[in-house]
């Protein structure tokens, strides 16, 4: 199946699994090869590929961008950016003797989406390991259900108790995330805006 860049982005926006499958079969092998050649594993390649597509998903939900390159080139550039960041994060400054700066692509403008994705991953990781009662009460409250309904659903004795339980669970989650060094790392990064905004070429 041959898709234009716009069709691919549209497919990502619509979460179309046929388009996602096409992206995987068309572009993953080259990305995998790059990661393996640069100190990575199969699992790293899959992780980077997934993260790159989540970032694109976040980007297209704001607006469908236009670039001056093919979709494949842009996706590859995003994956390189993510792999480069991963190396920097664990304290490496070169890959195979080549300085990391040489891999940098100034046309990739995804810093904001990267921070957004990483923070979300961190929050959900900590959320998933909470006690089941806490997870349930937090989920119910974010759905804006009446507190009376939450009280009944949770089997609590009073409205105030329900609110207190929510607050205690939320405080605990906040404290764990706040104290996570990775969260501090992400929070300290300023949003950097690259000046070069790539433009699409249509068709393949």
């Amino acid at each position, binding site marked *: 199946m041959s898709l234009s860049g716009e069709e691919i982005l549209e497919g990502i926006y619509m*979460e179309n*699994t*046929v388009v*996602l*499958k096409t992206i*995987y079969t068309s572009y*993953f092998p080259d990305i995998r090869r790059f990661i393996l050649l640069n100190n990575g594993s199969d*699992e790293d390649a*899959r992780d980077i*590929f*997934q993260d790159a*597509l*989540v970032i694109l*998903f*976040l980007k297209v*939900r704001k607006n469908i961008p236009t670039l001056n390159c093919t979709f494949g080139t842009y996706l590859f550039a995003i994956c390189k950016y993510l792999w480069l960041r991963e190396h920097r994060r*664990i304290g490496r400054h070169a890959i195979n003797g080549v300085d990391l700066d040489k891999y940098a692509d100034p046309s990739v403008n995804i810093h904001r989406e990267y921070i957004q*994705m990483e*923070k*979300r991953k961190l*929050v*959900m*990781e*900590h*959320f*998933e*390991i*909470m*006690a089941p009662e806490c997870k349930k009460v*937090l*989920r119910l409250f*974010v*759905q804006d259900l009446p507190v009376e309904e939450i009280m009944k659903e949770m089997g609590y004795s009073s409205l105030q108790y329900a609110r207190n339980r*929510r*607050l205690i669970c*939320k*405080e605990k*989650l*906040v404290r*764990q*995330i*706040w104290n*996570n060094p*990775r969260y501090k790392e992400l*929070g300290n990064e300023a949003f950097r805006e690259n000046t070069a905004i790539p433009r699409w070429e249509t068709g393949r």
Partner: protein
Amino acid sequence: MKHSERIQRYLDGKLAGEELRKFREDLAKDPELLKELDLYRLIDHSIKDQDQERFREKLVQAMEDDSGLPLPAKHKRTKKLTALRYLTIPAAILIFGMILHTMLGRENSGQEIYTSYYKSYSDSPLSRISTLENDVLLLNGVEHYLNKEYNEALIKFQTYRISETTADIASFYSGLSYAEMGRYSEAISEFEQVIALDMSYFHEHSHWYAALCYIRIEKFGRAAEHLIELRHESKVYRREARILLRKIN
């Protein structure tokens, strides 16, 4: 009113009048309060809007499906239901067996995971620390550990005069010795000391063994904190940390 309570009331739209004015004033003056508010918002948004998680699941499905075409979710459920209709008795037996296994095994789940994943650490630090040969007590302690003489190892580590440059070695091997002897809380305490040193060679190993010890004593929440750290920071243990996090969740 507690700090967190004020933030939550603000997000719930329950602050008004003077309270609201004061809170906004504090937000303008206090960047830490603003960051904390952002985190509360991020948490609510993340739990409510599962968009990224849903997209990621679809992506994983597209990557794992090897039929060439993705199956709609409804189709998959129908296939499962059809299979069960024709396999009711064996399925019932299987389900009963699983329940029985879970009931019998529940109390030992931490022990099972620990037994599956714990491997004795057999690496000697000699090759890494050139000054070690001068620290006879420490050297003897490590030798006792490698010979599985854990009591003797602990005695050596405890009488060793700790210096800043090698405190992590004594603590790490003490932790391992305690773990081998089934004294998991003491092991955890030693590993936490290494972790606190931050730049130690044994940093990620300590996170790993601390996580295993927490699993063994069924403190899965504490174990998960260490595994999350490894998942982000460790090349050596990232894969196992990811697997274990799924097991204990």
